[in-house]
């Protein structure tokens, strides 16, 4: 079997002296969509930040394509293909759509390439090239954010709350796109609070509560446990 694109072994971390994650183990292979679900404050976004090395693990190891990432800065990982779409879109609201696309040229793609891929996939953005990104609708902002994932040729995609504040139909579209990217061989780790949509496209899922993955398995297996996990009706909180 291939080396996993992303592998976390016994990872614990936190902020200052406050621990957030406790002994996390997970792996994402090529073509996988790993959905990490859980209620607010469970450590989902922190886990993504550890994966992209925006914060360092206290213990354990984070490996990307088999290499231990200790000492590798987040920007170097981003340059070679670890793409993070953060919660809250991760765009520059005070820049226009075109200027946001210019900001995506960090990974050595030309602006023309990025524009071509973006406007082909999201034609509505093509009509608003001079508009400030902050004045776009929530769905369009997320499309702009996702265009980074499409055009910078990532190998590992880390998505944080893709569905936040969006209409269900847009969420379905965006997850269709994520599914398409995974079929092309990209590994995707997505964290979500609202679980049902992502479980439809995920190949594997886990439930993260209070910094621990309390359950892991196929989306079907996990769907039944979700209500208990979120409402705390079992011994998992």
């Amino acid at each position: 079997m291939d080396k996993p694109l992303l592998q976390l072994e016994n990872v614990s971390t936190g902020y200052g002296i406050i621990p957030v994650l406790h002994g996390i183990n997970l792996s994402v292979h090529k073509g996988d969509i790993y959905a990490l679900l859980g209620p607010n404050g469970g450590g989902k976004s922190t886990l993504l930040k550890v994966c992209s090395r925006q914060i360092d693990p206290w213990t354990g190891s984070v490996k990307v394509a088999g290499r231990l990432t200790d000492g590798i800065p987040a920007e170097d990982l981003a340059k070679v293909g670890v793409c993070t779409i953060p919660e809250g879109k991760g765009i520059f609201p005070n820049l226009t759509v075109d200027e946001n696309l210019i900001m995506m040229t960090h990974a050595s793609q030309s602006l023309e390439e990025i524009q071509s891929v973006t406007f082909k996939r999201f034609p509505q953005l093509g009509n608003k090239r001079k508009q400030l990104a902050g004045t776009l609708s929530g769905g369009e902002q997320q499309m702009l954010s996702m265009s980074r994932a499409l055009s910078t040729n990532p190998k590992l995609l880390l998505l944080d709350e893709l569905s936040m504040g969006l209409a269900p139909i847009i969420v379905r579209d965006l997850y269709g796109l994520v599914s398409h990217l995974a079929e092309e061989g990209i590994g995707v780790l997505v964290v979500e609070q609202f679980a049902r949509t992502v479980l439809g496209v995920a190949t594997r899922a886990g439930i993260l509560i209070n910094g621990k993955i309390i359950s892991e398995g196929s989306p079907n297996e996990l769907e039944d446990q979700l209500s208990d996990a979120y409402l705390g009706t079992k011994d998992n909180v």
Partner: protein
Amino acid sequence: MDNEFENAIQKIKTKTGSNERDKLFELIGLLILFGGVILTLIAYFVAGSQNSGNVAIDSLEHNEHIILAIFGVALSISGGFIYLRFSIGRFLRFWLLRQIHENNKSSKS
């Protein structure tokens, strides 16, 4: 796995830290330490060799050499601190690497 990605990841250079700079400061600290000692010794021997027979003139000369010797001692102490600071930094970095290595080994087993 995409070999291109794997190669790109393998090629990323990790930052080597400031080991070279620490070595340089260690050396500078040592030079200052020994320079101070030598200065103190020179002041001592020069003061000792000056014996004109006139106590008043000799004690004035000696005062200058005492000040020079104290300056030498101060230099030695400062050099010692600089050496200690950077050699401890290097040792702690080595110790930290060892801890990380041990930690990784124990998490694998």
